[in-house]
């Protein structure tokens, strides 16, 4: 490793850590109720409004590859089952902060928590 390599590593590490800290602030915990958006192949197929004390719910989503099961509990949401080979989306587990996103690339399903929830909730 040359001097330049070391400097580069340090700079990249700093940028990484700084942006990481910034991203933690950027995804702030959501106020109740929150809004979960589910998209398949770029189209919104479902919008859920979740209350803090909402019971466990399951939804079947028809993705490009097959059926996926999305589970919500309170304001948390996760991909319970997916027909993809890598199961990355399932392993990711629960998300609960606004702007957090679960992406299942093979099945083309995207789940994210929207920040506009409170506005939509008051307008009905």
């Amino acid at each position, binding site marked *: *490793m*040359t*001097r*330049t*390599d070391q400097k*580069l*590593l340090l700079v*990249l*590490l700093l*940028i*990484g*850590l700084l*942006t*990481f800290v*910034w*991203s933690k602030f*950027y*995804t702030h915990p959501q106020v109740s109720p929150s809004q979960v958006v589910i*998209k398949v192949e*770029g189209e919104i197929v479902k919008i859920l409004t979740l209350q803090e004390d909402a019971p466990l719910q399951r939804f079947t989503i028809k993705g490009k590859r097959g059926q996926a099961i999305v589970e919500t509990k309170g304001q948390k949401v996760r991909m319970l089952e997916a027909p993809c080979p*890598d199961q*990355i*989306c399932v*392993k*990711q587990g629960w998300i609960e902060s606004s*702007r*957090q*996103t679960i*992406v299942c*690339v*093979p099945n*083309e399903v*995207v789940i*994210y928590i929207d920040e506009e929830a409170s506005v939509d909730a008051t307008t009905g």
Partner: protein
Amino acid sequence: MLKTRRLVYFSLFVTLATALGFLEMLLPNPFPLPGVKLGLANLVTLLVLYVYGLKEGLAVSLLRVLFASLLGGTFLSVGFFLSFSGAVLSTLVMAVLIKYVPALSIIGVSMVGAISHNVGQLLTASFLIQTPYLFYYLPVLLLAGLPTGLATGYLARLLLRYLKNYQ
């Protein structure tokens, strides 16, 4: 180098890259983070860039993505375009660094290559999978690219010594 010999070597590199890329697709992801992997296929691209040059490096990585997707049945899927863009961007970036920043060793080049691979994928992903908050994931991919880039960089340096001796 003789033309035939060059062709045989080039084919071997393509095969190696494809096999490594496919192997990594089959293995369960050792990291609990989506999109993070060691990048063994990128190791081959890096070596080819050093031994041959940009044209060959680009050809190896493009053929590797094509063959691995045909093997895995993901040709022209979203995943295919993600690998494609990551491979192209990282190959170009690494080639530019090798040519214009001689102060960087193969390890530094590998690090930037790994990161640009992740960035390329994320750019394409945010374009193809229309979701607003994907870039929040960039720091994770950036930080993850450092150790994996370092690891493949050290491996590449080791292998490059043998390759150079052989030629």
